[in-house]
Structure formats: C-alpha cells, structure tokens
C-alpha cells in the first residue's frame, strides 16, 4: 500500500482543486475526491502501466462527477456558496469590482470548463487533457478556444472576434 500512497497522494491536491472548481462546495468536493480515489484503488491492479497516472485519476474523478450529475445526487450549487470556495481577494481582479472568474467558469458547459481547468490550472498537456476527457486532441483545442472566448466575454476583457488571419494547423 505504501507505493500506492506514494503514487496517488501527490495527485490529491490537484484532484481536490479540480473537484472544488467543478462543484464549488468544499465538502461535496472532498466526497467526490474520496469516491474517485476509492474506485482508483480498487481498479489499481488493472491499471495500464503505460498510461499517465494523473490523467487516469482525473478521468475517474470526472466520470464520477458526471455520474453524480446524472443521478442528481451531486447538485451544482449557485454563487451564494462561492465564499466557501476560496477567499475572493485571491482573485487579482476581484478588488477592482470586476466579475469573479469562477462565476465565468461556472457559466461554461462542463466540457469546456473541464478543458480549461485541466490545461490552464492543472498544467496538463493537451494530450493528457484529451486522455482525461476521452476525446481527440483536436477536440480539446476547439473546446479550449470556445472556453477562452466565453471567459473573455464574461470578464469583458477583449473583443471575441476571431480574426481572419488565424487558422488551425497541425
């Protein structure tokens, strides 16, 4: 069990952060993390050794989250519980009377929210984020574009017009 702990526990802070960002409620987030970790530990012997451990754990957590939403046992909560998540003063823009970045995040569809969190907050590579979400890398990139466009609009940071100069290359 010690090697299991040594491998899994370093991922717990990131898993908790992702869970809080999804649920915005601390207790429910830790319940979700616990649930995901229990499943990971049970599935451990069948884990593919060549896969990325972090992506595997995040995939389990996200899947448990989606299951919970489907069963309505996990309720997405509103902004009134925001203060419970983290000190809003930690947001550099909060003191300027601008909108809370987490409100913008909450307004995104889950698939865009997850892509943005995994890439921008958890520092996952696009390939690892694709593995977590079980989609091709190209889908990750297009979801990231949409997520960033919506966040810019929400925070009123810049026009969201996509210029004609941009095109996607491999």
């Amino acid at each position, binding site marked *: 069990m010690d090697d299991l702990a040594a491998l899994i526990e370093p991922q717990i802070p990131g898993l908790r952060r992702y869970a809080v960002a999804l649920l915005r409620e601390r207790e429910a987030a830790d319940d979700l993390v616990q649930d995901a970790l229990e499943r990971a530990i049970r599935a451990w012997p069948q*884990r593919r050794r060549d896969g990325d451990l972090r992506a*595997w754990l995040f995939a389990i957590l996200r899947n448990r989250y989606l299951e919970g939403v489907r069963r309505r046992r996990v309720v997405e909560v509103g902004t009134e519980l925001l203060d419970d998540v983290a000190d809003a003063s930690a947001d550099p823009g909060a003191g300027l009377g601008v909108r809370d970045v987490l409100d913008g995040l909450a307004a995104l569809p889950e698939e865009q929210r997850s892509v943005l969190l995994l890439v921008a907050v958890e520092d996952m590579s696009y390939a690892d984020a694709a593995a977590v979400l079980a989609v091709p890398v190209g889908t990750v990139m297009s979801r990231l574009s949409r997520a960033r466009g919506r966040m810019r609009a929400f925070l009123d940071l810049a026009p969201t017009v996509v210029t004609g100069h941009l095109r996607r290359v*491999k």
Partner: protein
Amino acid sequence: MTASDPRPVGEDDLHALVDGRLDPGRRAVVEAWLAEHPDAAARIAADGQVRARLRARLAPIADEPIPARLRVAHLARPRPVRSSRWLPGAAAALVCLALGGAAGWIGRGAVPPAAAPAEPMTQAAVSAFRTYVVEAVHPVEVRADGTPHLEQWLSRRVGRPVRAPDLRAQGFRLMGGRLLPAGDEPAAMLMYDDDRGTRLTLYSRAGAAGGRGVFRYAREGDVAAFSWIDAGMAYVVTARTDEARLLRVAEAVDAQASGRGNGLQ
C-alpha cells in the same frame, strides 16, 4: 521568422503560448507574428489574464494539507488478517472489489465504469439512525442491563451471533438495541451514546458475501457512516460526528467482532 519552423501560426500555437507550452524557437515565431496582429495579441493577453486569475483563485485549495479521510491508508486500509483461515476469503473479496471497480477501464482514453449506487445497506442503516436517534422515550427496544439477554435475543433473530462491542474506550456506552426489517432476514441495531448525548448506531446483518472488505465512508448531510463486511456479516456504524472519531469506532467494532477484542457482555 526563423527558418527552423516556418509553419504558419495557428490557433494551437496561440493557446500553447498562453499555456507556456511553446519551445523558445516557436515562441519567437509566434511573438513576431503577434507583433503584426494587435487584435490577436490583445486576445492572447486577455487569455493569459484569465489563466492567471483562475490559477490565483484556485491555488489556495491545492496548498491545503490533505484531509485525513483522503489519505490512501484510510481509504484502502490494509486490514490485519487474524488467522490463516481467512486468507482465501479476504483475497477473494478484494479481487471482487478490484474487478468490480475496473471492469470498464480498458486502455488509455477509456472512461472508468459507472459507480454502483450507494450501498442499500448503508442507506437503510442511515435511515434507521435518523429515525431512532431522535427518540427520547424509546430509542431502543431492549435496554442494555448488563445481562446477555440483549445479545441472545438479537443473535437468535438475526441468525448469527450478534455481540455488542465495548466502545467505552471511544467514549460510547451501550444503550440497548432493536431489531429492524431488512429483506429476508432482520438486521440488528445497537445504540450507544456519549457524555455529551451524541448517539451512535451499529447496524449489522447476516447475508453479506464472505471474506473481508475495506471500510467505506459515506456521508449524507450531517450524518457520517462507515460500512464494511467481514465473514458473512455486514456492518455499518453511523453517527453525527467527525469521520476520524467514527473511524476509530469502526476499527474498534471490527477488532472486537473479529475476535481481536472483547465484547461488553
């Protein structure tokens, strides 16, 4: 523009710039391109700002110490094997759990399987807890009176020996017990309380799979529960208390029920 990477700048380059994922050569190419495209440059600056604000907002969570209940040792407690005759059963139970958890995870990119719904037994135990702990006059059917009567009666009805663990070391005294309907065979519920009036229930019933399982933690509102199976019996301890204290109770109950400690009577 460098000759080493002459490909035109794409959306993926712009995201990679925001996310710090470009190597220095490519980064120079993209930055030179942005210098000629102020709209895109403004967009990238805004994306960078969103990224920084998200990270700053969520960073405190990852800086916190890990809650005790999320420690791997608490989730998958390797439970002491009390005698060699339990080895096959214990191994089988753990394999079953592992297979059940892994069935859908085939390869990278696959998604782990859907959860089993929360255990019905735990739900029944928590419901019973909620129903009876609020009882001021009749919290139990049979009061503990220092005689074997309570354990004998419950054992006879449940069909397996039911012993009331001694939880005085954990601060709980046995109040008594009652029988509950639970499918084909009844379940036994013992109730304890502490000096501050905190009540705790131990729910047990026969008919579980053989072998030993890990402790499972569940929480429903303010009520916490640990459940596990051992040697054909299923157990749930439930209380309105913190999980660390409840876990100590679960461990004490388990130790006594499996013969590594003594019951009260």
